[in-house]
């Protein structure tokens, strides 16, 4: 525990060049919902549920793998207040995926909302609804289920071609080729090679091979998954839910429930964090089934234990990296082979796995050959899904650990090794073209990459000295440093689409409607800033409404670091187009050519100054006064990226390691990032600070543990501890000046990149501290001490 914070100097704040260039962009505008949230005004789904809603509870499987022989709901139904008990027999037999992804989904349709088979402890068996919560809970316990218990597959290293087949059902299928082979327990597979890797490795005088095993991780958004549903006046199904992607939710639900899309409306209220954990349909089908069955509103808030046992985790992966280099450190070849554990169902199986390569390998783009491949396998554990970092964190952990091994072997500063090989502005990588999220990628040239600046500033902030990467602070206690670099993406090019509509209102303000989904990240504020900047008004003139499939334009949702870049670009386009329409309308009123009208400081003027009209007055004119010319002035625009410009980050860490106990403490973590223009530097900074701590949690503390029979042992916050305020000394985040020409006002993305470096940087620091490469995450005191002891005994022999 750190008790002297004054010893870690905070970053001296420096002003970004961008701040001077813009009026609203690159300024620290306060989040528009901040005060309301602090005061706890009703905002989240559970705050808003109607008082008469039925409480929904789920009966869940106590077995890792079983067939349901029978379900007897009679005792539950006999309980006063119980409205219904629904089982797989009440569901359409349609395979679906729960993954909120584009259409067609790159995830296999290998799941039914309720099935005759259950494939992990916690899998849904039946849906119970009652008038109050206690009755619903009691009824759920009274549902009698008989199981034929089957032998599960729990170890992902043994899943491939195991005689036990987790998905024998004939109806399941892939939507397009993703290497889906359920008979072999393979959810997805992929291989690619550029150049000849074996040859290049053989030719290289220096070679290293490093394998890391990164564990499953829980998202722990503080608000558990929550939804309620009701039938509206038109007989349509409305679901208010904590989702990251309302449109995908609507589409997947329509398929699952075999309903026309037009009969469903999804509304996202405020949501209490997502991190990828709410990018799926986990609860919506069940409230919907109850409402459709009973005609009554229904509500469901998962318990923390249910969130842990029965939503999604991060994909556990084994990443093997081989590097070949010249003795001066020039990399010749990279080979990355991955085994990924998707758990019981294949949500995001292919795509997370692909990102392990596609958003890591381009970092070192000067190699002669690069290869990537492996399998994503099924096991009888809770499914893995989207999680901030989305494969990149796993891939980078392998790659950046191997890079440090290479630096040790050659004997050069790990920073210099990276600088020698890393990507720069104006360059490209074949990997961009070859590997995408589905299968093929999109070629792109990097127009903004300030990795050099990130590294230089990071070194300064941490006090990097390659000759002193470890030093003793007390007998048995050492401090050490390590580092890693990272890239991510900004949306999925030619797949993600976002839209925005801006409408001019009386009083001279603007309604901004976006489909984009604010998870607490502040995207509503950021999009308002973008609209205000483009329109040339202040942020207060923009009123934002978001994420309602009936009332806002389409957006794929908040994932893949897309909101600022994709949805933000849509806002720029809409604002630009609206401004043009405003000027045209005023020009007509003035009786001049639009080219002679300018809009500045909330006033329209002719170029010669002869006529002038305030925005305020014009708003009433166009809606109330101008006779036949009266009209609503609005614009709707959409955007999809032609590329996905990566943000970059250099992470540096100082740790203290107690050699007698194995305890590792992070004293200082420094992240310096190139996110393009930060639309709101404060919010970008917090994204990166929060992500860094989540990454530190993965590196040192968090672990999803199971019993031998597949029961989750770490099923609540007592057994799965996330970092508290006292775990880490200081996290310093800085943004460097950067401008991405393809992004809105030069912006890229900031949501995910911050989580990518801590696991490798901490591993590298431990390597510097004790001379041992730890490979199994998390690095608990026991693992560190056992490694030290093992090295001692081996050294003695």
């Amino acid at each position: 525990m750190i008790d002297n914070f004054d010893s870690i100097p905070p970053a001296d704040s420096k002003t970004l060049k961008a701040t001077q260039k813009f009026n609203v962009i690159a300024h620290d505008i306060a989040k528009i919902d901040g005060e309301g949230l602090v005061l706890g005004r009703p905002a989240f789904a559970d705050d808003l549920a109607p008082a008469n809603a039925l409480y929904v509870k789920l009966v869940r499987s106590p077995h890792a793998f079983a067939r349901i022989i029978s379900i007897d709901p009679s005792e539950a139904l006999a309980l006063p207040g119980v409205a219904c008990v629904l089982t797989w027999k009440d569901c359409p037999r349609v395979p679906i995926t729960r993954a909120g992804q584009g259409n067609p989904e790159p995830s296999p349709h290998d799941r039914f909302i309720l099935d005759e088979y259950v494939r992990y402890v916690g899998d849904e068996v039946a849906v119970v609804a009652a008038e109050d919560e206690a009755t619903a809970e009691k009824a759920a316990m009274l549902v009698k289920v008989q199981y034929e218990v089957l032998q599960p597959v729990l170890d992902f290293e043994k899943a491939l071609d195991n005689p036990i087949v987790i998905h024998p059902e004939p109806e399941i299928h892939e939507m397009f080729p993703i290497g889906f082979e359920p008979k072999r327990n393979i959810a997805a597979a992929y291989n690619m090679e550029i150049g000849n890797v074996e040859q290049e490795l053989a030719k290289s005088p220096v070679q290293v091979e490093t394998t890391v095993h990164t564990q499953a991780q829980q998202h722990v958004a503080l608000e558990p998954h929550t939804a309620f549903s009701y039938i509206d006046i038109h007989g349509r199904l409305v679901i208010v839910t904590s989702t990251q992607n309302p449109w995908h939710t609507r589409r997947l639900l329509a398929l699952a429930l075999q309903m026309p899309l037009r009969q469903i409306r999804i509304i996202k209220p405020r949501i209490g964090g997502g991190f990828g954990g709410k990018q799926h349909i986990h609860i919506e089908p069940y409230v919907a089934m109850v409402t459709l069955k009973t005609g009554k509103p229904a509500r469901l808030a998962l318990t923390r234990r249910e969130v842990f046992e029965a939503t999604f985790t991060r994909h556990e992966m084994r990443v093997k990296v081989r590097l070949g280099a010249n003795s001066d450190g020039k990399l010749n070849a990279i080979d990355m082979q991955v085994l990924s554990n998707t758990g019981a169902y294949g949500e995001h199986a292919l795509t997370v796995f692909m990102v392990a390569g596609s958003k890591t390998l381009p970092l070192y783009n000067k190699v002669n050959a690069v290869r990537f491949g492996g399998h994503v396998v099924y096991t009888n554990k809770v499914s893995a899904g989207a999680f901030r970092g989305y494969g990149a964190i796993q891939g980078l952990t392998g790659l950046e650990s191997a890079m440090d091994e290479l630096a040790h072997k050659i004997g050069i500063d790990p920073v210099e090794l990276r600088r020698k090989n890393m990507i720069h502005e104006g360059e490209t990588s074949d990997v961009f073209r070859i590997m995408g999220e589905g299968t093929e990628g999109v070629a792109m040239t990097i127009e903004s990459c300030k990795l050099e600046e990130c590294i230089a500033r990071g070194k300064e902030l941490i006090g990097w000295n390659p000759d002193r990467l470890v030093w003793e602070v007390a007998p048995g206690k050492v401090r050490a440093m390590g580092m890693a670099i990272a890239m991510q993406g900004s949306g999925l090019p030619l797949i993600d689409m976002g839209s925005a509509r801006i409408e001019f209102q009386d009083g001279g303000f603007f309604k901004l409607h976006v489909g984009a989904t604010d998870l607490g990240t502040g995207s509503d504020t950021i999009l308002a800033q973008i609209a205000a900047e483009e329109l040339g008004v202040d942020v207060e003139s923009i009123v934002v409404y978001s994420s309602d499939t009936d009332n806002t334009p389409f957006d794929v949702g908040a994932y893949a670091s897309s909101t600022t870049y994709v949805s933000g670009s849509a806002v720029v386009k809409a604002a630009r187009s609206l401004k043009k329409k405003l000027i045209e309308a005023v020009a007509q009123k003035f009786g001049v050519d639009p080219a002679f009208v300018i809009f500045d400081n909330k006033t329209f003027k002719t170029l010669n100054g002869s006529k002038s009209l305030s925005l305020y007055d014009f708003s009433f004119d166009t809606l109330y006064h101008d006779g036949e010319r009266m009209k609503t002035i609005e614009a709707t625009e959409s955007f999809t990226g032609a590329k996905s410009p990566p943000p970059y980050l250099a992470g540096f860490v100082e740790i203290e390691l107690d050699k007698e106990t194995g305890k590792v403490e992070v004293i200082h973590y420094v992240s310096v990032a190139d996110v393009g223009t930060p639309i709101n530097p404060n919010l970008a900074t917090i994204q990166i600070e929060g992500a860094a701590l989540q990454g530190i949690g993965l590196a040192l503390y968090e672990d999803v543990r199971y019993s031998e029979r597949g029961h989750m042992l770490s099923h609540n916050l007592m057994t799965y501890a996330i970092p508290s305020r006292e775990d880490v000394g200081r996290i310093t985040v800085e943004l460097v000046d950067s401008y991405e020409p393809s992004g809105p006002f030069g912006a890229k993305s900031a949501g995910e990149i911050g989580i990518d470096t801590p696991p490798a940087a901490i591993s590298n620091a431990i390597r510097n501290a004790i001379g041992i490469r730890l490979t199994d995450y998390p690095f608990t005191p026991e693992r560190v001490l056992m490694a030290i002891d093992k090295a001692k005994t081996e050294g003695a022999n």
Partner: protein
Amino acid sequence: MTITIYINGKREILECQPGDMLTEVLRKAGYVEVKKGCDTASCGACTVLIEDKPVLSCSYLAVRADGKRITTIQGVAEEAKKFAQFLTAEGADQCGFCAPGFALTVLSMKKELRNPSEAEIRHYLSGNLCRCSGYEGQIRAIKKYLEAVHD
């Protein structure tokens, strides 16, 4: 059973079962600013003041609150708004699910500790988990807030 509590200065007579925890009873009565983030007394989202002391309402029997004074963040709205300015000025409000419980604890820390060091601030607030912010922005906000209100 019925209990009488004095919540944010208002007398409320509420129905509850003997095993009910205060969080559920308060939320049902409309005090939805009291959040529930876990089932195990681990997160601090449910913090309320009972007789001016911050406690976890999820682990406090509603019947035991009978006759007591309870304060939620709404009961100290003016002070909370002031603190919210500092929190939002750092962008540290994020999803805000932890915010009511967190802010309430900050306000009670302000009363209890004089010129706390950063380590003392972190220690006092360690029961308020936040998964979004990484805590740094919250700490910056608290320091600036304490400086401003002590002058």
